């Protein structure tokens, strides 16, 4: 990409920097708010679908009158709504908001990014409608049918155009860590999504393709963009830089190399070549390197500043998310080992792990990002701080209950399944109380989302008292 003609500076004068931030936020306001509004709605829809799917384990004859509400479809609609609706749209919103600030250039063609948000919603409405109606490609994470995928390909292209052109017009010499992750994610998603949708595979080869995609949708897309947000927000709120540039570099490149090779650990024990599984297990274990690098970097930056957590909801959510990232990743590395996987594969244990990652890590960071970004876009403060506390504790308590119940229940399920003397009926029955506890955890998360959505609605309608000063430590004045 050609270098811009204007002079580069990484450290403009404070007043210049402040006015540039205002200009950057003005340029991103419309598309980012549209991405954010949509993400909140998909979060509500997605969690409702998840809760319905979860309750069906306890009430298997509930909502069985039509194919539309059968477990296999509701569960799949849930996954697509939360992964491609909530997480992806919120993450894109955060990325579109961060990039102009980080490269000191207003968003290029905001209208194009806005059109991308409209198209992305169209994709979700058609795609999730198709899944519920029974029209599916049948591959996990790739259920939405090919013709509808074209809609998201175009929308993603528009979004990438707007972001990449903004980067091309940058006025910074240096790219901050968050920019690396955003740029790489914008390259990775189109490559994996288009490749995985090529209709040239079948049988076992298609299974390999399926999980190369599925795990990279998590690793190279959701994780990358979530880390980009955390790398922006933690130093911003604390007012101190990230501890180590070198660790950031190690974290980034090791993630790029190892995460992309993880996928086949979803097929451990399956009818695929053993060397292939071994490659993915090795790469899964090597994920300890980027995870440790990122963890050390975040936690040493936080050192001595944990008191700030009480004053900043953004930081509370992001730090919780970053800690859960470390935990979920280390768990994932352990889970890929053959001895552990022998027990956990095919059980609810895996479902607990997946939710720890996408909810405990990515969603918590996204909630934190909303609390930071939305005041700067609507020029208002969150009117009811108590609701933020409710949101935080319901979400954290919900995922904790969800994770603990499925981890214990899933492990027992796995151990019993390995014991051929246990009839299969016993294996099913033993999980039932844990699945009830999971539904309670899910209901708490749903309640957290209702609180959050209500508060968000108050916020964008600018309800409540006119803010005299920022309600929270990192409010507008802190930039």
């Amino acid at each position, binding site marked *: 990409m050609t270098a811009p003609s204007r002079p580069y500076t990484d450290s403009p004068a404070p007043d210049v920097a402040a006015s540039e931030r205002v200009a950057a936020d003005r340029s991103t306001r419309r598309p980012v708010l549209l991405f954010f509004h949509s993400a909140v709605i998909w979060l509500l829809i997605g969690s409702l679908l998840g809760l319905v799917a979860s309750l069906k384990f306890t009430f298997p004859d509930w909502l069985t009158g039509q194919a539309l509400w059968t477990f*296999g479809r509701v569960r*799949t609609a849930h996954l697509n709504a939360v992964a491609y609706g909530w997480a992806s749209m919120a993450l894109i919103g955060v990325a579109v908001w961060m990039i102009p600030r980080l490269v000191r250039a207003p968003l290029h063609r905001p209208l194009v990014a806005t059109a991308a948000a409209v198209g992305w919603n169209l994709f979700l409405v058609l795609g999730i409608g198709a899944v519920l109606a029974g029209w599916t490609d049948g591959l996990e994470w790739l259920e939405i049918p090919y013709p509808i995928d074209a809609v998201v390909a175009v929308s993603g292209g528009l979004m990438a155009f707007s972001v990449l052109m903004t980067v091309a017009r940058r006025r910074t010499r240096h790219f901050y860590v968050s920019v690396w992750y955003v740029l790489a994610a914008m390259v990775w998603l189109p490559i994996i999504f288009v490749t995985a949708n090529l209709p040239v595979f079948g*049988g076992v080869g298609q299974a390999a393709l399926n999980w190369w995609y599925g795990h990279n949708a998590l690793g190279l897309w959701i994780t990358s963009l979530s880390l980009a947000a955390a790398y922006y927000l933690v130093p911003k709120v604390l007012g101190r830089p990230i501890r180590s540039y070198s660790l950031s570099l190690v974290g980034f490149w090791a993630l790029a190399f190892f995460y992309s090779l993880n996928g086949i650990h979803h097929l451990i024990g399956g009818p*695929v070549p053993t060397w292939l599984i071994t490659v993915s297990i090795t790469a899964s274990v090597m994920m300890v390197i980027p995870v440790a690098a990122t963890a050390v970097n975040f936690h040493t930056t936080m050192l001595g500043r944990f008191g700030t957590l009480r004053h900043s909801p953004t930081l509370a959510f992001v730090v919780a998310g970053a800690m859960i990232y470390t935990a979920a990743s280390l768990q994932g590395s352990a889970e890929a080992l053959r001895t552990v996987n022998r027990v956990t594969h*095919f059980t609810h244990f895996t479902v607990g792990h997946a939710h720890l990652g996408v909810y405990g890590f990515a969603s918590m960071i996204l909630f934190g990002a909303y609390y930071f970004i939305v005041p700067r876009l609507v020029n208002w403060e969150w009117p009811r701080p108590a609701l933020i506390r409710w949101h935080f504790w319901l979400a954290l308590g919900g995922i904790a209950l969800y994770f603990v119940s499925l981890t214990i229940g899933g492990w027992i399920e796995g151990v019993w399944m390995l014991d051929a003397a246990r009839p299969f009926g016993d294996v*099913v029955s033993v999980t039932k109380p844990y699945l009830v506890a999971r539904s309670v955890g899910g209901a708490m998360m749903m309640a957290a989302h209702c609180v959050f959505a209500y508060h968000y609605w108050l916020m964008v309608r600018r309800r409540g008292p006119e803010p005299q000063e920022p309600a929270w430590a990192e409010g507008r004045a802190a930039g």
Partner: protein
Amino acid sequence: MNRYLVIFLGAVATVTFAFLVLVGLPQEQLADVGAPAALRPYSASEQAGRARYVSLGCHYCHSQQVRTPAFGSDSARGWGRASEPDDYVYDRPHLLGTMRTGPDLMNIGVRQPSRDWHYLHLFQPRAVAPYSVMPSFPFLFRVKDQAEMGDVIVNTPPGLVPAGKVLVARPEARELVDYLRAMQHDYDVRAAAGGGR
């Protein structure tokens, strides 16, 4: 880092490398996998049943892969011999699955050859397996006053349908059961037809 190109090329290189290793190489290695002599392609009805299986999302709770005895109790449970890539040559989309909320179905046609069992199980899983958490699929059936010509009547235990009514399998149920009964992978996989291993 201050070079766009470094990030861009680095990102392309890592993901391409992963694709070549995880998808490209196995594709190459498995290129000469041929259909075993005893494995026949799905009939039209079985294929339609398979499409129904996919559309209802059965594969989110049932795997179709039997692990080796060293790696689990699959064979000891009577789920069949360890699966091989050859067993899947006709499978699009693949349905290997990642959950066993219900049992593996690679050989369900061997374990349960009875059509009546399958119909009853789909209509009300708890009528045959009281512990089951599987959804019931009443929309694959019709409860009628009287059977007509060509209807497939399902023998039900007392109380499952109102007295004086009959339970009839819709074509969707018949195709699905055709598919499930065709899930028989108990042949010798080494006795290959064309291609071999």
